[in-house]
């Protein structure tokens, strides 16, 4: 393995190997931190759903399962393209790397666009928590507000991570275009991939927890 990239070795490391292992471990610790961060939201969700399952089911009933499913597919696909991007970097193939990164970014943007339509629909239906909140089913009424608070907090935090992810992706893409990455040095790509997959995993939990729990809810009790 040639070291055409000795410039990539920071002065305080002894070898690229050490540097790579350090950055991988660092990224994983960061993700563990993210797990706990989202964990607080999941904790809140768990408690309030346990306390008022009906209101959650009713609230979930009002989410758009088609769009949720579409976004799930989009995001998992973007995870695949991201994995392929890392693969391309590992095998020093620059064009596919650029292609896969671009695809990942496009899918990420698609996700956000869909999310935007979902959010605006919620706004129109007065499902955004606050003074305008109004839940059409009288038996549930204001009880559904906490569900929607959590819906916005969780998907909003997730979307924020997507936005940050896309910004980082742009920066990685720039590096790829300039040919900074190949089999001897690709840990930025790899670590970004870890982040992207993590965001995907969060959605893997959010989708069933928010969209799917109300499918056999038929109003009333």
């Amino acid at each position, binding site marked *: 393995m040639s070291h055409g990239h000795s410039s990539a070795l920071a002065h305080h490391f002894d070898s690229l190997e050490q540097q790579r292992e350090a950055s991988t471990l660092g990224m994983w610790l960061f993700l563990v931190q993210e797990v706990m961060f989202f964990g607080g939201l999941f904790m809140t969700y768990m408690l309030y759903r346990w306390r*008022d399952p*009906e209101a959650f089911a009713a609230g979930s009933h009002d989410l758009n399962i088609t769009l949720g499913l579409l976004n799930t597919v989009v995001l998992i696909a973007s995870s695949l393209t991201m994995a392929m991007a890392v693969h391309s970097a590992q095998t020093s193939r620059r064009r596919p790397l650029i292609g896969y990164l671009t695809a990942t970014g496009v899918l990420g943007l698609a996700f956000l666009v869909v999310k935007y339509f979902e959010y605006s629909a919620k706004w129109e239906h007065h499902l955004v928590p606050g003074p305008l909140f109004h839940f059409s089913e*009288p*038996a*549930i*009424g204001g*009880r559904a507000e906490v569900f929607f608070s959590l819906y916005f907090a969780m998907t909003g935090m997730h979307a924020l991570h997507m936005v940050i992810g896309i910004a980082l992706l742009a920066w990685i893409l720039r590096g790829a275009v300039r040919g900074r990455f190949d089999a001897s040095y690709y840990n930025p790509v790899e670590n970004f991939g870890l982040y992207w997959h993590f965001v995907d995993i969060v959605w893997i939990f959010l989708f069933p927890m928010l969209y799917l729990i109300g499918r056999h809810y038929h109003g*009333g*009790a």
Partner: protein
Amino acid sequence: MPFKIPFMPEQASSMAGEVDALTLYLVAMASFFTVLVAAMVIYFAIRYRRRSPDEVGGSFDNSALLEITWTVIPVLIVLFTFVWGARVAFRLYRPPADAVQYYVTGKQWMWKTQHPTGQREINELHVPLGQPVKLLMTSEDVIHSFFVPAFRVKADVLPGRYTSLWFTPTKTGRFHLFCAEYCGAEHSRMIGWVTVMEPEEYQAWLASVPTQGSPTAAGERLFAQLACHTCHQDAAGAKGPALGGLYGRPVALADGRTVLADESYLRESILNPAAKVVAGYEAVMPSFQGQVSEEGILELINYVKSLPAGGSASVAAASEGAL
């Protein structure tokens, strides 16, 4: 076991002595370790003080025996401490069966109390000597905490929920009542007095305070005022279930769950009736959120609790579990 130790507040409840005994044990335990370690450190420090600038220490630097000793002994001690503390706590949590229920509402920044016979007070609570007292408490705004040092009792008072505490006064006199949970600007002025009186004196005092009747009576008035009876009448075909004998009984809900009809359930039924719909009924009861004060709700609950089962004469004996 009454005893007087400096820096201990007065012991004026049946539990105060037990808490103080625990305290004395804790102080003794801590003193033992503090003296032991201090003696060890001081003795070694002097005995092995450095005598020449280039002297170094010895090489005796581990001993499994010592490590086991000073792990196992503290473990045993803390387990013992835990058990003692938990026993005292459980006694502090479980009111005696004959406790009489008083009502407390916390509000920025005052304590509103009400006697079972209906008298209301602000920042004061008069109770008879020797009578176990249980307080059922809630808050109208933020979290407060009801604290009477002389009784060694404290419990947070939360919005949207009931909490309770109990004590049996063993000494007449006036005792500090504090709000112990920070609740805003006048937190330190949310204070008052608990006055313990001889039972006869207490009766005389009660008689001297004008009252609009017991909470139950007030509840009855509210019940009529809010037109609850239009739906809740003990008649076949009524829109709402009969409420007689409801308190303390499990209720079957429309969604198949079962709930115990305690104060919290009654409260929720009034403020958020749709949350738990009784099996066999439509969810048509409107929410009374915002139409009744916390005290009003307490009175309504009291009234509902007083309704005899199936219209029969005996008032359902309040089978109050512990807190």
